[in-house]
């Protein structure tokens, strides 16, 4: 249906795509995988008309398409769902779905609201999403917004759907529903193209997998007649094979060894670095009792919407809070992040681009931003550039941040490297307690593994870590202890032994979803 023919994209000094030829067939789910910087985003941007190919072409039905602008792609029936939600918050769901192809009467003088509403209801119904078309987009949860984004593509009669990391921001339950939805779109005869770092999803639903590395297609896999994903030789392919194909080398376990022994663990709890007593974010969570010792990594699991992020934000003074926080045994109350920072508490946001870093500032400026006072003289009148460059260089080296020109805007770095910058800027404030929200969202396997060992090393150095994540293997792999949140409060806790036991993931899911009474779903 859609074919990329020898597509090459060159940026000044970089060849982002090198003669990539791929077929996207109707009724097929085609997964593109690769490490960050492998060229996946560039490929999607070419297909969706956001950037032109330097050489080669995108063809539909054997005819080369002129894709100079996203609207060209839309006219050609190609729709893309971006990682970021692009809904207009002040419009209703129905208006958002109709955006760009409104049902109008009298030559555009009047929008036929009723027809738009019906159409939206029909599309959403077909997707199995119980979302009221008349509600405002601003009232949607992230998962719901994602469904509306997809509804938008379907309503525009797109035959080719491109999804960029569609499940990255979804909890496990919603992710499953989304995957089911993709399977349904394939059955409707659409070509579905998706990029994902979740290799289990790829193995589960993709009919064809193409692996990109350094801008080239290095390997392809196809689902055989027996329903299993196989390579050219017919051998069965699992996540391990895919991961190896992506990085081009053998990967050991991506999780570092857990070093904290249970004895130490007990001693940690005597002297917690941070203690939450009957704590919560006003209106969002409550009744949380939790202590994290120096050198301990405590995971926080829970479905999206369970109040994990809000609780973390309340700790560092970004939200109104209830209850008590004790740091080093002393009750504290922070009215802003700066106060929390001075008390040695750092929070790395889940929303990297929007909150975690400044994408238009340079790598150096980003790393030194929260701790800028340390690089200034004369009461802030003079920034010591040598000092600030040295601080940045130190972190670039310790974390192996790949950035050729640290003076260049951070947006030129891959997601994994930006995440390391987000961590570095907070570690430079020398915190006693580090709260990391979704530490590896949108980060490739290689960088993930690096971030895990960074966290393990920090804990070994005496930092108290709270790790919030929607990825269970990650939480199980790096936490000494784990707390499960549900409906704004703690639903249970798993000790180190329980975490290592067989079936821990199921145990966590049951706690997170309240076993049979699943109410916090997309509804």
């Amino acid at each position, binding site marked *: 249906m859609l074919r990329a023919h020898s597509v090459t994209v060159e940026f000044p000094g970089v060849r982002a795509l090198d003669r990539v030829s791929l077929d996207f067939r109707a009724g097929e789910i085609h997964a593109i995988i690769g490490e960050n910087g492998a060229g996946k985003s560039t490929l999607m941007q070419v297909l969706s008309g956001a*950037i*032109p190919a330097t050489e080669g072409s995108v063809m539909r039905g054997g005819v080369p398409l002129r894709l100079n602008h996203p609207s060209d792609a839309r006219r050609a029936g190609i729709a893309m769902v971006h990682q970021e939600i692009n809904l207009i918050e002040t419009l209703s769901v129905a208006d958002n779905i109709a955006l760009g192809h409104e049902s109008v009467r009298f030559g555009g003088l009047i929008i036929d609201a009723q027809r738009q509403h019906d159409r939206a209801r029909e599309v959403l119904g077909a997707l199995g999403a119980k979302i009221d078309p008349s509600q405002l987009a601003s009232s949607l949860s992230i998962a719901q917004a994602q469904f509306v984004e997809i509804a938008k593509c379907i309503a525009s009669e797109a035959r080719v759907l491109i999804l960029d990391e569609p499940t990255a921001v979804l909890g496990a339950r919603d992710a499953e529903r989304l995957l089911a939805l993709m399977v349904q779109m394939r059955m409707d005869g659409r070509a579905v193209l998706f990029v994902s770092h979740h290799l289990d999803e790829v193995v589960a639903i993709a009919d064809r997998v193409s692996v990109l590395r350094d801008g080239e297609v290095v390997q392809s896999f196809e689902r055989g007649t027996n329903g299993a994903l196989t390579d050219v030789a017919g051998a069965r392919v699992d996540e391990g094979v895919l991961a190896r194909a992506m990085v081009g080398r053998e990967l050991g376990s991506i999780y570092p060894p857990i070093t904290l022994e249970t004895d130490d663990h007990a001693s940690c709890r005597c002297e917690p670095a941070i203690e939450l007593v009957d704590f919560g974010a006003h209106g969002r969570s409550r009744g949380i009792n939790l202590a994290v010792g120096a050198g301990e990594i405590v995971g926080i699991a829970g479905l999206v919407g369970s109040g994990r992020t809000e609780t973390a934000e309340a700790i560092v003074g970004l939200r109104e809070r209830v209850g008590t926080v004790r740091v080093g045994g002393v009750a504290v109350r922070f009215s802003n992040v700066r106060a929390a920072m001075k008390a040695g508490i750092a929070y790395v946001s889940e929303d990297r681009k929007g909150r975690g870093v400044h994408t238009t500032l340079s790598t150096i400026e980003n790393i030194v931003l929260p701790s800028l006072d340390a690089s200034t003289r004369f009461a802030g009148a003079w920034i010591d550039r040598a000092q600030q460059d040295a601080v940045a260089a130190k972190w670039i080296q310790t974390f192996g941040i790949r950035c050729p020109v640290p003076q260049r805007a951070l947006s030129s770095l891959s997601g994994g490297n930006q995440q390391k910058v987000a961590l570095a800027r907070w570690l430079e404030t020398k915190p006693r307690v580090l709260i990391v929200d979704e530490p590896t969202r949108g980060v490739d396997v290689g960088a993930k593994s690096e971030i895990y060992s960074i966290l393990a090393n920090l804990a070994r150095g005496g930092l108290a870590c709270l790790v919030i994540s929607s990825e269970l293997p990650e939480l199980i792999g790096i936490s000494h202890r784990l707390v499960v949140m549900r409906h704004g409060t703690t639903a249970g806790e798993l000790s180190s032994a329980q975490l290592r036991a067989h079936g821990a993931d199921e145990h966590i899911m049951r706690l997170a979803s309240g076993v049979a009474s699943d109410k916090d779903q997309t509804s």
Partner: protein
Amino acid sequence: MNMAIAPHIRPAHELLQRWGVVVAFAILFAVSTAKQGAEFLNPENFRAMLNSNAPVGVLAVGMTLVIISAGIDLSVGSMVVLAAAVGVTAMNALIASGTSELSAVLLGASITIACGTAAGMVNGVLIVYGKIAPFVATLGGLAAFRSMSLAIADAGEIRAQSATLFSALGRGGIPLPYLENAAGKQLTLSYSTVIFFALAIAAQWILSRARFGRYLIAIGANETAARYAGLPIASVRLRVYALMGLFAGIAALIQSSRMNSVSTSQLGLGSELDAIAAVVIGGTSLRGGAGRVWGTVVGVLILAMITNILTISGVSPYWQGAVKGGVIVLAVLVQRPSNH
């Protein structure tokens, strides 16, 4: 839909984005020289041009910092007239009460600057603590500050009661050796021009070397991210509006001293537009998060040269607005970021 620019010609476009303002300046300079020759190149002409544009230049420099923080200040012209009216009125009252002229002038000058700063702080408080959008809060200031100064003088003129001392700042300057005008009189570099350049250098230094400037950029680029990074957002934003007020106070002092009077209905009228125009021509985006003071200075000079060339060529003043408007739009067109 021919917006896409192929990657290989992007550097040229970026070059134009960055240096376009300098190119424009050079072109205007060349055109002026070609048309007016000696009359334009006459040092006295430059002196007069810089001197008369220094007050707007001072405002534009302050405005650059405000705009980089993703804000705007529409009240600068009204702050100028209010600060000047209050300052001169206070000075006159002091002279009338028998205070020595020198201390009256010094106090009057200080009050002018303090009044500007206070007005700027009012804007800042409304924006930071009242959580009113900068556009709206300073639109209120635009109306209110002007109205207050009209009330002070019954919409008329306030004449300074200092004979020569007060006007020394606005009219005087540093003698420049070897430069004489046609009449053989020695040329001076006016104090107002010196103040304009000194403030511009200070502001550029704040922007590139001081913590305050770095915070302005970070807040302008992404206020939410700045909040999550623990930056003192309220104090930085408050300070940038207070600083803008301070600059307006300085501009007010230059203006009232030069005229030795304050026309409450005319002084500073429309200055906010000239100041914002200079910032935009200079390549600072109204989106905030990045910018440059030196560009603004070139922007002020470009506007000054346009007025100059139109005046010398005898173009009706009624047409000058149209030309300036065209230049502003052109500047934004050339300097807007490419799509990718």
